[in-house]
Protein backbone atom coordinates (compact mmCIF):
# COMPACT_ATOMS: atom_id res chain seq x y z
CA UNK A 1 0.00 0.00 0.00
CA UNK A 2 2.74 2.50 0.86
CA UNK A 3 5.30 1.46 -1.73
CA UNK A 4 6.85 4.69 -2.92
CA UNK A 5 8.49 4.72 -6.31
CA UNK A 6 11.68 6.77 -6.67
CA UNK A 7 10.97 9.29 -9.41
CA UNK A 8 13.59 11.67 -10.75
CA UNK A 9 10.88 14.28 -11.29
CA UNK A 10 9.35 13.84 -7.81
CA UNK A 11 9.08 17.03 -5.81
CA UNK A 12 7.62 16.01 -2.49
CA UNK A 13 9.21 12.77 -1.35
CA UNK A 14 12.89 13.20 -2.18
CA UNK A 15 14.84 13.96 1.01
CA UNK A 16 13.75 11.42 3.63
CA UNK A 17 12.80 11.98 7.26
CA UNK A 18 16.14 13.34 8.53
CA UNK A 19 16.43 17.12 9.04
CA UNK A 20 20.08 17.37 7.93
CA UNK A 21 19.30 15.59 4.67
CA UNK A 22 16.17 17.71 4.18
CA UNK A 23 18.17 20.94 4.59
CA UNK A 24 20.87 19.61 2.26
CA UNK A 25 18.30 18.89 -0.46
CA UNK A 26 15.88 21.77 0.03
CA UNK A 27 17.78 24.40 2.03
CA UNK A 28 16.58 26.05 5.26
CA UNK A 29 13.06 27.43 5.79
CA UNK A 30 12.66 30.21 3.19
CA UNK A 31 11.22 32.86 5.51
CA UNK A 32 9.40 35.56 3.57
CA UNK A 33 10.19 38.43 5.94
CA UNK A 34 6.64 39.15 7.09
CA UNK A 35 2.94 38.40 6.78
CA UNK A 36 1.03 38.35 3.46
CA UNK A 37 4.16 38.12 1.29
CA UNK A 38 3.58 34.52 0.30
CA UNK A 39 0.00 35.16 -0.86
CA UNK A 40 0.79 36.61 -4.34
CA UNK A 41 3.31 33.81 -4.96
CA UNK A 42 0.75 31.14 -4.05
CA UNK A 43 -1.85 32.88 -6.22
CA UNK A 44 0.52 33.05 -9.19
CA UNK A 45 1.40 29.37 -8.70
CA UNK A 46 -2.30 28.43 -8.73
CA UNK A 47 -2.02 26.13 -5.71
CA UNK A 48 -5.28 24.52 -4.57
CA UNK A 49 -6.03 22.38 -1.52
CA UNK A 50 -5.04 18.70 -1.65
CA UNK A 51 -7.43 17.52 1.07
CA UNK A 52 -10.27 16.91 -1.37
CA UNK A 53 -12.19 20.16 -1.85
CA UNK A 54 -9.56 21.80 -4.09
CA UNK A 55 -10.16 25.33 -2.78
CA UNK A 56 -7.66 28.01 -3.96
CA UNK A 57 -5.04 28.23 -1.20
CA UNK A 58 -4.26 31.95 -1.62
CA UNK A 59 -7.88 32.89 -0.92
CA UNK A 60 -7.89 30.93 2.32
CA UNK A 61 -4.55 32.45 3.35
CA UNK A 62 -5.84 35.97 2.61
CA UNK A 63 -9.08 35.42 4.53
CA UNK A 64 -7.25 34.16 7.64
CA UNK A 65 -4.45 36.77 7.38
CA UNK A 66 -7.11 39.52 7.51
CA UNK A 67 -8.27 38.32 10.96
CA UNK A 68 -7.10 38.92 14.49
CA UNK A 69 -4.60 36.50 16.17
CA UNK A 70 -5.09 33.58 13.77
CA UNK A 71 -4.30 29.92 14.30
CA UNK A 72 -2.89 27.47 11.73
CA UNK A 73 -3.57 23.75 11.63
CA UNK A 74 -1.85 21.25 9.35
CA UNK A 75 -4.44 18.60 8.54
CA UNK A 76 -3.15 15.05 8.08
CA UNK A 77 -6.20 13.26 9.49
CA UNK A 78 -6.78 11.39 6.24
CA UNK A 79 -10.03 9.81 7.40
CA UNK A 80 -10.60 8.31 3.96
CA UNK A 81 -9.65 4.63 4.41
CA UNK A 82 -8.57 4.29 0.76
CA UNK A 83 -6.05 7.15 1.11
CA UNK A 84 -2.48 6.71 2.32
CA UNK A 85 -0.73 9.71 0.76
CA UNK A 86 -0.77 12.01 3.80
CA UNK A 87 0.72 9.44 6.18
CA UNK A 88 3.24 8.42 3.49
CA UNK A 89 4.26 12.07 3.10
CA UNK A 90 4.50 12.55 6.89
CA UNK A 91 6.67 9.44 7.21
CA UNK A 92 9.01 10.19 4.31
CA UNK A 93 9.10 14.01 4.12
CA UNK A 94 7.85 15.46 7.44
CA UNK A 95 10.16 18.49 7.23
CA UNK A 96 8.63 19.74 3.99
CA UNK A 97 5.21 19.70 5.70
CA UNK A 98 6.62 21.39 8.82
CA UNK A 99 8.39 24.05 6.70
CA UNK A 100 5.03 24.71 5.03
CA UNK A 101 3.29 24.97 8.40
CA UNK A 102 5.85 27.56 9.61
CA UNK A 103 5.55 29.54 6.37
CA UNK A 104 1.74 29.46 6.52
CA UNK A 105 1.93 30.71 10.13
CA UNK A 106 4.29 33.52 9.07
CA UNK A 107 2.00 34.38 6.16
CA UNK A 108 -1.19 34.76 8.22
CA UNK A 109 0.58 36.12 11.33
CA UNK A 110 -0.30 33.14 13.54
CA UNK A 111 1.27 32.55 16.93
CA UNK A 112 -0.23 29.08 17.45
CA UNK A 113 0.32 26.10 15.16
CA UNK A 114 -1.03 22.55 15.34
CA UNK A 115 -0.38 19.43 13.35
CA UNK A 116 -3.37 17.09 13.32
CA UNK A 117 -2.33 13.57 12.32
CA UNK A 118 -3.35 9.94 12.78
CA UNK A 119 -1.72 7.80 15.43
CA UNK A 120 0.50 5.98 12.89
CA UNK A 121 2.61 8.95 11.67
CA UNK A 122 2.46 10.85 15.00
CA UNK A 123 5.75 9.37 16.24
CA UNK A 124 7.59 10.26 13.03
CA UNK A 125 6.22 13.80 13.30
CA UNK A 126 7.23 14.17 16.96
CA UNK A 127 10.72 12.95 16.10
CA UNK A 128 10.97 15.49 13.26
CA UNK A 129 9.79 18.28 15.58
CA UNK A 130 12.41 17.33 18.18
CA UNK A 131 15.13 17.55 15.50
CA UNK A 132 13.87 21.00 14.50
CA UNK A 133 13.79 22.22 18.11
CA UNK A 134 17.40 21.10 18.59
CA UNK A 135 18.40 22.90 15.37
CA UNK A 136 16.27 25.99 16.21
CA UNK A 137 14.61 25.60 12.83
CA UNK A 138 11.15 26.91 13.77
CA UNK A 139 9.85 30.29 14.89
CA UNK A 140 6.70 29.03 16.59
CA UNK A 141 6.08 25.81 18.49
CA UNK A 142 3.91 23.13 16.88
CA UNK A 143 1.54 21.05 18.98
CA UNK A 144 0.72 17.56 17.67
CA UNK A 145 -2.93 16.53 18.00
CA UNK A 146 -3.80 12.90 17.24
CA UNK A 147 -6.84 12.40 15.02
CA UNK A 148 -9.50 9.76 15.57
CA UNK A 149 -9.62 7.16 12.81
CA UNK A 150 -13.03 8.18 11.51
CA UNK A 151 -14.10 9.24 8.02
CA UNK A 152 -15.29 12.73 9.01
CA UNK A 153 -12.52 13.53 11.53
CA UNK A 154 -10.52 15.39 8.86
CA UNK A 155 -13.40 17.66 7.87
CA UNK A 156 -12.36 21.29 8.44
CA UNK A 157 -14.71 22.08 11.32
CA UNK A 158 -14.19 18.64 12.89
CA UNK A 159 -10.47 19.44 12.91
CA UNK A 160 -11.24 22.66 14.81
CA UNK A 161 -13.27 20.70 17.38
CA UNK A 162 -10.47 18.15 17.82
CA UNK A 163 -7.81 20.84 18.30
CA UNK A 164 -10.04 22.39 20.99
CA UNK A 165 -10.05 19.01 22.76
CA UNK A 166 -13.64 18.12 21.85
CA UNK A 167 -15.03 15.20 19.90
CA UNK A 168 -13.89 15.48 16.24
CA UNK A 169 -17.34 16.24 14.86
CA UNK A 170 -18.25 18.67 12.08
CA UNK A 171 -19.93 21.93 13.09
CA UNK A 172 -22.54 24.14 11.55
CA UNK A 173 -20.97 26.47 8.95
CA UNK A 174 -22.97 29.61 9.78
CA UNK A 175 -19.63 31.05 10.91
CA UNK A 176 -16.79 30.09 8.60
CA UNK A 177 -13.68 28.44 10.06
CA UNK A 178 -11.44 31.04 8.38
CA UNK A 179 -13.28 33.68 10.43
CA UNK A 180 -14.09 31.77 13.62
CA UNK A 181 -12.32 28.47 14.19
CA UNK A 182 -10.15 27.30 17.09
CA UNK A 183 -11.50 29.04 20.25
CA UNK A 184 -13.26 31.59 18.03
CA UNK A 185 -10.06 32.71 16.34
CA UNK A 186 -9.58 32.89 12.54
CA UNK A 187 -8.20 29.48 11.60
CA UNK A 188 -6.32 28.16 8.59
CA UNK A 189 -6.90 24.41 8.24
CA UNK A 190 -4.66 23.22 5.42
CA UNK A 191 -3.98 19.69 4.23
CA UNK A 192 -0.40 18.53 4.91
CA UNK A 193 0.35 17.93 1.22
CA UNK A 194 -0.80 21.47 0.41
CA UNK A 195 1.66 22.74 3.05
CA UNK A 196 4.49 20.74 1.43
CA UNK A 197 3.71 22.33 -1.98
CA UNK A 198 3.59 25.73 -0.26
CA UNK A 199 7.09 25.17 1.14
CA UNK A 200 8.37 24.38 -2.38
CA UNK A 201 6.64 27.39 -3.97
CA UNK A 202 8.31 29.64 -1.35
CA UNK A 203 11.69 28.21 -2.46
CA UNK A 204 11.36 27.85 -6.21
CA UNK A 205 8.56 30.26 -7.19
CA UNK A 206 5.38 30.00 -9.27
CA UNK A 207 7.05 29.45 -12.66
CA UNK A 208 8.84 26.36 -11.39
CA UNK A 209 5.59 25.15 -9.78
CA UNK A 210 3.74 25.56 -13.09
CA UNK A 211 6.36 23.58 -15.03
CA UNK A 212 4.29 20.46 -14.34
CA UNK A 213 0.56 19.91 -14.58
CA UNK A 214 -1.75 21.85 -16.90
CA UNK A 215 -2.08 25.63 -17.36
CA UNK A 216 -5.44 25.62 -15.54
CA UNK A 217 -4.46 23.03 -12.92
CA UNK A 218 -0.73 23.37 -12.32
CA UNK A 219 1.57 21.24 -10.22
CA UNK A 220 1.66 17.65 -9.05
CA UNK A 221 -0.42 15.63 -6.61
CA UNK A 222 0.06 12.53 -4.53
CA UNK A 223 -2.22 9.72 -5.66
CA UNK A 224 -3.12 6.64 -3.64
CA UNK A 225 -3.93 3.74 -5.94
CA UNK A 226 -5.94 0.88 -4.40
CA UNK A 227 -7.60 -2.33 -5.42
CA UNK A 228 -6.19 -4.43 -8.24
CA UNK A 229 -3.01 -2.26 -8.19
CA UNK A 230 -1.57 -0.21 -5.36
CA UNK A 231 0.79 2.42 -3.94
CA UNK A 232 1.37 6.16 -3.48
CA UNK A 233 2.65 8.05 -6.52
CA UNK A 234 3.35 11.69 -7.33
CA UNK A 235 1.72 12.59 -10.64
CA UNK A 236 1.20 15.83 -12.60
CA UNK A 237 -2.38 17.10 -12.93
CA UNK A 238 -3.67 16.21 -16.36
CA UNK A 239 -1.89 12.85 -16.57
CA UNK A 240 -4.15 10.39 -18.44
CA UNK A 241 -5.90 7.93 -16.12
CA UNK A 242 -4.35 4.94 -17.92
CA UNK A 243 -0.85 6.41 -17.47
CA UNK A 244 -1.51 6.82 -13.75
CA UNK A 245 -2.49 3.15 -13.59
CA UNK A 246 0.63 2.21 -15.56
CA UNK A 247 2.75 4.12 -13.02
CA UNK A 248 1.12 1.97 -10.33
CA UNK A 249 2.52 -1.10 -12.08
CA UNK A 250 -0.17 -1.59 -14.68
CA UNK A 251 -3.26 -3.67 -14.20
CA UNK A 252 -2.66 -7.41 -13.96
CA UNK A 253 -6.33 -8.02 -14.78
CA UNK A 254 -8.63 -5.87 -16.96
CA UNK A 255 -10.61 -3.30 -14.98
CA UNK A 256 -14.33 -2.71 -15.27
CA UNK A 257 -14.27 0.63 -13.45
CA UNK A 258 -12.06 2.99 -11.47
CA UNK A 259 -13.33 4.95 -8.48
CA UNK A 260 -11.78 8.44 -8.59
CA UNK A 261 -11.78 10.86 -5.65
CA UNK A 262 -12.28 8.25 -2.93
CA UNK A 263 -15.50 7.05 -1.32
CA UNK A 264 -17.10 10.46 -1.93
CA UNK A 265 -16.02 10.23 -5.56
CA UNK A 266 -17.34 8.82 -8.82
CA UNK A 267 -16.68 5.76 -10.97
CA UNK A 268 -15.00 5.98 -14.37
CA UNK A 269 -15.83 3.31 -16.98
CA UNK A 270 -12.89 1.90 -19.02
CA UNK A 271 -13.79 4.10 -22.00
CA UNK A 272 -12.89 7.10 -19.78
CA UNK A 273 -9.39 5.86 -18.93
CA UNK A 274 -7.88 8.12 -21.60
CA UNK A 275 -9.24 11.18 -19.77
CA UNK A 276 -6.79 13.53 -18.02
CA UNK A 277 -6.72 13.32 -14.21
CA UNK A 278 -7.81 16.91 -13.61
CA UNK A 279 -11.01 18.74 -12.75
CA UNK A 280 -11.52 19.69 -16.39
CA UNK A 281 -10.70 16.20 -17.69
CA UNK A 282 -12.98 14.37 -15.25
CA UNK A 283 -15.92 16.80 -15.43
CA UNK A 284 -17.81 14.78 -18.11
CA UNK A 285 -17.96 11.87 -15.61
CA UNK A 286 -18.95 14.01 -12.64
CA UNK A 287 -15.64 13.18 -10.93
CA UNK A 288 -12.84 15.30 -9.47
CA UNK A 289 -9.27 14.29 -8.52
CA UNK A 290 -10.11 15.23 -4.90
CA UNK A 291 -7.45 13.91 -2.54
CA UNK A 292 -6.03 11.70 -5.32
CA UNK A 293 -7.62 8.42 -4.29
CA UNK A 294 -8.11 5.79 -7.01
CA UNK A 295 -9.75 2.41 -6.41
CA UNK A 296 -9.47 -0.12 -9.24
CA UNK A 297 -12.32 -2.62 -9.64
CA UNK A 298 -11.25 -5.65 -11.69
CA UNK A 299 -13.46 -7.36 -14.23
CA UNK A 300 -15.43 -10.27 -12.79
CA UNK A 301 -16.37 -8.49 -9.57
CA UNK A 302 -19.89 -7.14 -9.15
CA UNK A 303 -19.79 -3.33 -9.08
CA UNK A 304 -23.15 -3.20 -7.38
CA UNK A 305 -22.05 -5.47 -4.50
CA UNK A 306 -18.85 -3.41 -4.12
CA UNK A 307 -20.80 -0.12 -4.19
CA UNK A 308 -23.31 -1.41 -1.62
CA UNK A 309 -20.42 -2.37 0.65
CA UNK A 310 -18.90 1.14 0.40
CA UNK A 311 -22.34 2.76 0.91
CA UNK A 312 -22.75 0.65 4.06
CA UNK A 313 -19.38 1.85 5.31
CA UNK A 314 -20.27 5.50 4.59
CA UNK A 315 -23.63 5.17 6.37
CA UNK A 316 -21.79 3.84 9.42
CA UNK A 317 -19.48 6.85 9.31
CA UNK A 318 -22.23 9.44 9.80
CA UNK A 319 -21.19 11.68 12.69
CA UNK A 320 -24.66 11.09 14.13
CA UNK A 321 -25.58 14.76 14.37
CA UNK A 322 -27.77 15.80 11.44
CA UNK A 323 -31.20 14.17 11.12
CA UNK A 324 -31.33 13.73 7.33
CA UNK A 325 -27.85 12.11 7.32
CA UNK A 326 -28.43 9.95 10.44
CA UNK A 327 -31.72 8.63 9.02
CA UNK A 328 -31.15 8.90 5.28
CA UNK A 329 -27.73 7.30 4.83
CA UNK A 330 -28.62 3.99 6.55
CA UNK A 331 -31.83 3.85 4.50
CA UNK A 332 -29.85 4.46 1.31
CA UNK A 333 -27.30 1.81 2.27
CA UNK A 334 -30.05 -0.72 3.09
CA UNK A 335 -31.74 -0.04 -0.24
CA UNK A 336 -28.47 -0.56 -2.13
CA UNK A 337 -27.79 -3.70 -0.10
CA UNK A 338 -31.18 -5.06 -1.17
CA UNK A 339 -30.33 -4.32 -4.82
CA UNK A 340 -27.03 -6.14 -4.39
CA UNK A 341 -28.16 -9.10 -2.29
CA UNK A 342 -31.96 -9.10 -2.26
CA UNK A 343 -34.81 -9.32 -1.44
CA UNK A 344 -35.38 -7.54 -4.73
CA UNK A 345 -38.19 -5.25 -5.82
CA UNK A 346 -38.49 -3.32 -9.11
CA UNK A 347 -39.02 -0.03 -7.21
CA UNK A 348 -35.60 -0.15 -5.49
CA UNK A 349 -33.71 2.05 -8.04
CA UNK A 350 -36.40 4.74 -7.81
CA UNK A 351 -36.16 4.57 -4.02
CA UNK A 352 -32.38 5.11 -4.22
CA UNK A 353 -32.98 8.21 -6.36
CA UNK A 354 -35.69 9.54 -4.01
CA UNK A 355 -33.59 9.09 -0.86
CA UNK A 356 -30.55 10.62 -2.55
CA UNK A 357 -32.49 13.80 -3.32
CA UNK A 358 -33.88 13.81 0.23
CA UNK A 359 -30.54 13.86 2.06
CA UNK A 360 -28.59 16.05 -0.36
CA UNK A 361 -27.48 19.45 0.99
CA UNK A 362 -29.10 18.79 4.35
CA UNK A 363 -26.11 18.36 6.64
CA UNK A 364 -23.50 20.46 8.44
CA UNK A 365 -20.72 18.86 6.41
CA UNK A 366 -20.21 17.31 3.00
CA UNK A 367 -20.76 13.71 4.13
CA UNK A 368 -24.35 13.29 2.88
CA UNK A 369 -23.55 15.06 -0.41
CA UNK A 370 -20.38 13.06 -1.00
CA UNK A 371 -22.20 9.82 -0.24
CA UNK A 372 -25.00 10.75 -2.64
CA UNK A 373 -22.45 11.60 -5.37
CA UNK A 374 -20.91 8.14 -4.94
CA UNK A 375 -24.26 6.33 -4.94
CA UNK A 376 -25.58 8.19 -8.01
CA UNK A 377 -22.39 7.37 -9.87
CA UNK A 378 -22.65 3.70 -8.82
CA UNK A 379 -26.24 3.47 -10.08
CA UNK A 380 -25.23 5.07 -13.37
CA UNK A 381 -21.98 3.19 -14.09
CA UNK A 382 -23.36 -0.18 -12.95
CA UNK A 383 -26.81 0.33 -14.51
CA UNK A 384 -26.52 -2.92 -16.48
CA UNK A 385 -25.67 -4.77 -13.26
CA UNK A 386 -28.75 -3.22 -11.59
CA UNK A 387 -30.92 -4.48 -14.46
CA UNK A 388 -29.29 -7.92 -14.23
CA UNK A 389 -29.87 -8.11 -10.47
CA UNK A 390 -33.53 -7.16 -10.86
CA UNK A 391 -33.78 -10.06 -13.34
CA UNK A 392 -32.16 -12.41 -10.79
CA UNK A 393 -28.63 -12.49 -12.28
CA UNK A 394 -25.27 -11.17 -11.11
CA UNK A 395 -22.08 -10.82 -13.18
CA UNK A 396 -20.03 -12.15 -10.27
CA UNK A 397 -22.30 -14.77 -8.77
CA UNK A 398 -24.38 -15.81 -11.75
CA UNK A 399 -27.93 -16.76 -10.93
CA UNK A 400 -29.60 -16.74 -7.55
CA UNK A 401 -28.91 -13.22 -6.34
CA UNK A 402 -31.93 -13.05 -4.12
Amino acid at each position, binding site marked *: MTATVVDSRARLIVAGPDLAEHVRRHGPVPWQGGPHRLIPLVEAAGLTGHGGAGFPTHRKLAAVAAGDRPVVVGNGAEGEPASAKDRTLLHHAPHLVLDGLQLAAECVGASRAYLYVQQAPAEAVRHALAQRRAARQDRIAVEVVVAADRFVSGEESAVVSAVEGRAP*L*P*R*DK*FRMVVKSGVRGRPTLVQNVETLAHLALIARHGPTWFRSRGTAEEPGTFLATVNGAVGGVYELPYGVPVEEALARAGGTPVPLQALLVGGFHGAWLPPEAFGAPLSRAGLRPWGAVPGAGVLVALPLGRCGLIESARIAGYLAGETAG*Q*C*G*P*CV*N*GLPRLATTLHRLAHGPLHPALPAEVARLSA*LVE*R*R*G*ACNHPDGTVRFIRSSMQIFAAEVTAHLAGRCSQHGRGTR
Partner: protein
Amino acid sequence: MTRLHIDWTACEGRGACVELLPELLYRDEWGYPLAREKQPQVPPALEGHARRAVRDCPRLALRFVET
Protein backbone atom coordinates in the same frame (compact mmCIF):
# COMPACT_ATOMS: atom_id res chain seq x y z
CA MET B 1 -32.90 39.26 0.36
CA THR B 2 -33.23 37.03 3.38
CA ARG B 3 -33.00 33.28 3.54
CA LEU B 4 -33.17 30.72 6.32
CA HIS B 5 -30.21 28.74 7.58
CA ILE B 6 -30.76 25.48 9.46
CA ASP B 7 -28.10 24.27 11.88
CA TRP B 8 -28.55 20.55 11.21
CA THR B 9 -26.35 19.63 14.18
CA ALA B 10 -28.88 21.34 16.48
CA CYS B 11 -32.19 20.56 14.73
CA GLU B 12 -34.15 17.69 16.22
CA GLY B 13 -37.19 18.02 14.01
CA ARG B 14 -39.51 19.48 16.67
CA GLY B 15 -41.52 21.07 13.85
CA ALA B 16 -42.17 24.60 15.19
CA CYS B 17 -40.70 26.20 12.05
CA VAL B 18 -42.83 24.03 9.77
CA GLU B 19 -46.00 25.04 11.64
CA LEU B 20 -45.14 28.74 11.46
CA LEU B 21 -43.89 28.72 7.87
CA PRO B 22 -45.88 26.11 5.93
CA GLU B 23 -45.48 28.28 2.81
CA LEU B 24 -41.72 27.63 2.86
CA LEU B 25 -41.20 24.42 4.82
CA TYR B 26 -42.68 20.96 5.25
CA ARG B 27 -41.53 17.89 7.14
CA ASP B 28 -39.65 14.94 5.71
CA GLU B 29 -40.56 11.36 6.69
CA TRP B 30 -38.36 11.66 9.81
CA GLY B 31 -39.86 14.98 10.89
CA TYR B 32 -37.03 17.28 9.81
CA PRO B 33 -37.80 20.52 7.98
CA LEU B 34 -37.56 20.41 4.22
CA ALA B 35 -37.54 23.55 2.08
CA ARG B 36 -40.12 23.73 -0.69
CA GLU B 37 -37.52 25.62 -2.77
CA LYS B 38 -33.83 24.69 -3.00
CA GLN B 39 -32.68 27.91 -1.29
CA PRO B 40 -35.42 28.88 1.19
CA GLN B 41 -35.64 32.59 0.35
CA VAL B 42 -38.00 34.48 2.60
CA PRO B 43 -40.34 36.78 0.65
CA PRO B 44 -41.00 40.15 2.38
CA ALA B 45 -44.62 39.18 3.09
CA LEU B 46 -43.47 36.23 5.21
CA GLU B 47 -40.64 37.94 7.05
CA GLY B 48 -42.67 38.43 10.22
CA HIS B 49 -43.59 34.76 10.39
CA ALA B 50 -40.01 33.79 9.61
CA ARG B 51 -38.68 35.97 12.45
CA ARG B 52 -41.13 34.31 14.78
CA ALA B 53 -39.95 30.85 13.61
CA VAL B 54 -36.32 31.80 14.21
CA ARG B 55 -37.18 33.14 17.68
CA ASP B 56 -39.38 30.20 18.68
CA CYS B 57 -37.19 27.28 17.53
CA PRO B 58 -36.79 25.28 20.75
CA ARG B 59 -33.35 24.11 19.58
CA LEU B 60 -32.21 27.58 18.36
CA ALA B 61 -31.37 25.82 15.10
CA LEU B 62 -32.91 28.35 12.72
CA ARG B 63 -31.22 31.60 11.66
CA PHE B 64 -31.60 34.42 9.20
CA VAL B 65 -28.96 35.00 6.58
CA GLU B 66 -28.98 38.36 4.80
CA THR B 67 -27.80 37.83 1.25
